[in-house]
């Protein structure tokens, strides 16, 4: 399974996304990481280029709702159906709205690495 991890927006906190990249690679996934400050258009294009099966967005600056809305718009406009995940500083109140935008799963701060790995392995087999 190919996963494209990215940091949308201007947030520079990349410790978490890199930790996850290491962990997922170790768990056998094929990982691409885009680096910082990518627009949603850039992320979706790159996901298509590398033929990603999943996109993972890491957001710690509080812009997660806006980014999810934009994600939905761009995917719709481009007719792309790659599933996507969000991780980061996400308050409980925002989960419903983000799922409403089409996020497959959301992993707020405090999520254990194993939970993400297990989720992806199960997703893969479904």
């Amino acid at each position, binding site marked *: 399974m190919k996963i494209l991890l990215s940091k949308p*927006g*201007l*947030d*520079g*906190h*990349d*410790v978490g*996304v*890199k*930790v996850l*990249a*290491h*962990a997922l*690679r170790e768990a056998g996934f094929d*990982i691409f*990481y*885009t*680096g*910082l*400050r990518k*627009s949603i258009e850039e992320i979706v294009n790159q996901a298509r280029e590398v033929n990603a099966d999943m996109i993972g967005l890491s957001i710690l*600056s*509080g*812009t997660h709702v*806006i*980014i999810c809305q934009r994600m939905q718009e761009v995917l719709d406009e481009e007719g792309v159906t790659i599933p996507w995940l969000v991780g980061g*500083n996400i*308050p*409980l*109140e925002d989960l419903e709205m983000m799922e409403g935008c089409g996020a497959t799963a959301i992993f707020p*701060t*405090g999520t*254990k*690495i*194993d939970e993400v790995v297990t989720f992806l392995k199960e997703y893969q087999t479904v």
Partner: protein
Amino acid sequence: MKNPDKNEGNGKLPNLMTDDMKKVLLESGIEVKSLYTKEDVEKSEADHNLPGEYPFTRGIHPLMYRKRPFTIRQYAGFASPEETNKRFKFLIENGQTGLNVAFDLPTQCGYDSDNPKAFGEVGRVGMAVDTLDDFEIAFDGIDLDKITVSLTINGAAIVLMAMYFALAEKRGFDIRTLRGTAQNDILKEFIGRGTWIFPVGTSVKLVVDTVEYCARNVPKYSPVSVCGYHIRESGANPVQEMAYAFSIAKAYTDETLKRGVDIDEFASRLSFNFDIYGNLFEQIAKFRGGRRLWAKIIREEYRAKNDRSSWMRMIAGGGGGGLTKEQPENNIIRSAYYALISALSGTQTMALCSYDEAYTIPTEKAAELSLRTMQILIHEMGICDTVDPLGGSYYVETLTDKFENKIRAEMKKVEAMGGIVAAITTGEIQDIISHQAYDREKRIQGGDIPKVGVNIFQREETPKSVEFHPYNAEATDFQVEKLRKMRKKRNSKKVNQCLNLLREDARNDKNLLPPVIEAVKEYATVGEIIQTLKDVYGEYEEPIFF
């Protein structure tokens, strides 16, 4: 996963906390004995130095807090300059003695509030600044003579420093007497934090421009605060935190010397920003050993004559990496210990992370608690009564010596990579640190590194709502509208002249702070100035390592 509460049920602590025969290894690789005696320090340097005397192991001043407590400088800033001004006044009214300004991400990355890249980010993690007008609003009614201001800005530092100097001049200050600090440590932004803009070489040039300008024109201002903090947060161990920060400080120093500025004209204005979390004694030794080593580097390698040049002045107290989202109130207690560590280490300035920072911008209540933590330490605990109270401790002095040597050895490793600038440009440092961050996270999740509430003494918590600092979505419209009005009101012809001059000076490799100051005085925007420089220098391309 270990859970003594649930599994053992007899109040017994996990063996790693009681078995003193077990090997104790600090994060920095130092093995700890169960007892230290006089014999351990006989070979130490501990005996022959006093506070205020070279090499300053025991503190940079003879009297330290007995004369004046450390400065309290909580990080603050959000939404518009108007709202930030209110929070500043709240903090000052409550006894804060310095300001530490947070900027929003568009400002930090050099975009104006109306740039499409700024959408949704305006005023979110700090205050939005587009023009000098915003600085005039943010510092309205604040006496720059009494309250020193620290600007937490890096990629766009040259613009924000220019605004601060322009503001001071407009208020009638002689900038030769102006005090304050800019973070302005771009090299660490490539390692952690990530608000870089220009390629590495250009980025260093811009920092050195500000150091050179300040040495000649604003001699009391601290133009750079070199940050071990974010390097540690990104995965470095305490030895690497110090070693990389010192290597970075040396890189700025070497380049400044090439401009013909004497070491004693600027070294005393370099300062440091360090992290505190982890083992209490290890952190204290880190600062004491680091302070001694930095003094030796400046005097022995750079031949500084003035003692002040070799002072390792620092801000320390925060340690976001040690705080947890689980049982967030525990962070209040952790931060109080970090404050104690910082004071026992002889810090000049203290800022604590607020307990809710693991998930939001501090609420007013959380910010107040941080302030009170430091005030209780100063006023109730006797921390200011005597200098370096741990001086002479067999354990602390032994660790201090070991730290000095370990930091020195780690700096040699950086030199072997071709120096810190090369090691950052290739991404080698980032690679080392990111592997360590992963390793640490695995050890926390596996229970090897005990974290209360995370892997021991957990409590089943039903996810619940927590109090958030509210985001003001209207702040964007307000800020953008103000920017539009300013663009109409200002003298566009003069702005263009200033930007053309800046472009010309950039092409001719001149010091760019003077033309940037001229541009901000005409209300050129952060985005316009940064874009002008991008046209000449291009932008940084991040090497991808994980």
